[in-house]
């Protein structure tokens, strides 16, 4: 099993990146909509968007760590 462990980790990381990818898309898309509707609130929306992206990323980052551990 040793020689396929690297490939399995790669596939696992790829799978782990699907969910956060979709999630970040939703966060950023909705932030763009909010900024277009209320440009005066753009600063606040942008900060919140970065926070949302940062929290959504967490699962992808854990996948990244597992890739190194595996």
């Amino acid at each position, binding site marked *: 099993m040793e020689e396929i462990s690297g490939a399995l980790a790669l596939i696992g990381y790829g799978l782990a990146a699907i969910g956060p990818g979709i999630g970040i898309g939703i966060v950023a898309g909705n932030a763009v909509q909010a900024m277009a509707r209320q440009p005066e609130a753009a600063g606040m929306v942008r900060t919140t968007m970065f926070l949302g992206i*940062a929290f959504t990323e967490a699962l992808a980052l854990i996948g990244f760590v597992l890739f190194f551990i595996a």
Partner: protein
Amino acid sequence: MRTGRIGRRLLLGGFFLLIPVLLILFPPEPHHCDPAQDIICRPEFVNDLFETPTIFSIGGFAVNRAMLLMFLAAFVAIGLLWFAFRRPRVVPTKFGAAMEAVVGFVRDEIAIGIIGPSGAKYLPYLLSIFLFILIGNLFEVTPFINFPITSRMAIPAFLSVVTYLIFVIVGFAKNGLGYLGGIVWPKSVPVGLRPLVGLIEFVSTFLIRPLTLAVRLFANLVAGHVMLTLLLASGVVFIAHAGDIGARATIGIGWFALGMAIFLFEIVVALLQAYIFTLLSAVYIQTSVHPEH
């Protein structure tokens, strides 16, 4: 005014032209690679990009390039603030005004904007990590340095541990044991769900937070450094061996152009990751200062 702007554009353009010229004049040596056999030489280990040899050692402590760059980043951060604010003036110089904008951004948008009026107390810490991470990240795209110190896990991990200690200590100092109680037994959730939500909150606050804070910075910089190295180096290797492989070398131009595009993108990533690390540190401190929120 007009000539000044044109001059500045020429300077910027010259800077980006200089890098390809320098790389072609001094190509990075491809190790253990026989271009006559196969032009695409596999790098031995990706780790080699991040390992720096020991330069000298002081009493058992080996000092390598990454450590020296770490000190350089700290000195640059101190130097920027020192030269900008050593003599406060009514009308600041251009450089002073730029640094004031940076400090004002961290204070108003991050420290006070996130933590609230009591956030100014945390400005020294937030500004220090912001500048240190920013300079460490920008080393990635600085010619002749080309090594982001934040791509060594030790530095993001250490900064993340410091943030962790600050928000845990502030939480216990401000709320006593109620801080822990508020996390493992949240009052805003129906009683039946409290053990489950409490467990999730506990794991997310005390384990996931420091881990993701460190890994986010580390992963972004590792990915950027690997991408830049592969694209720019393969571009140079292809073009430098044009004599051996003939017309196929033109693909090197494409790799190099893509590398330069990623180069610009990495500047944005460096700024953004420094901002996000500082922002998240502020958010974590804020949840300890006002835990009911």
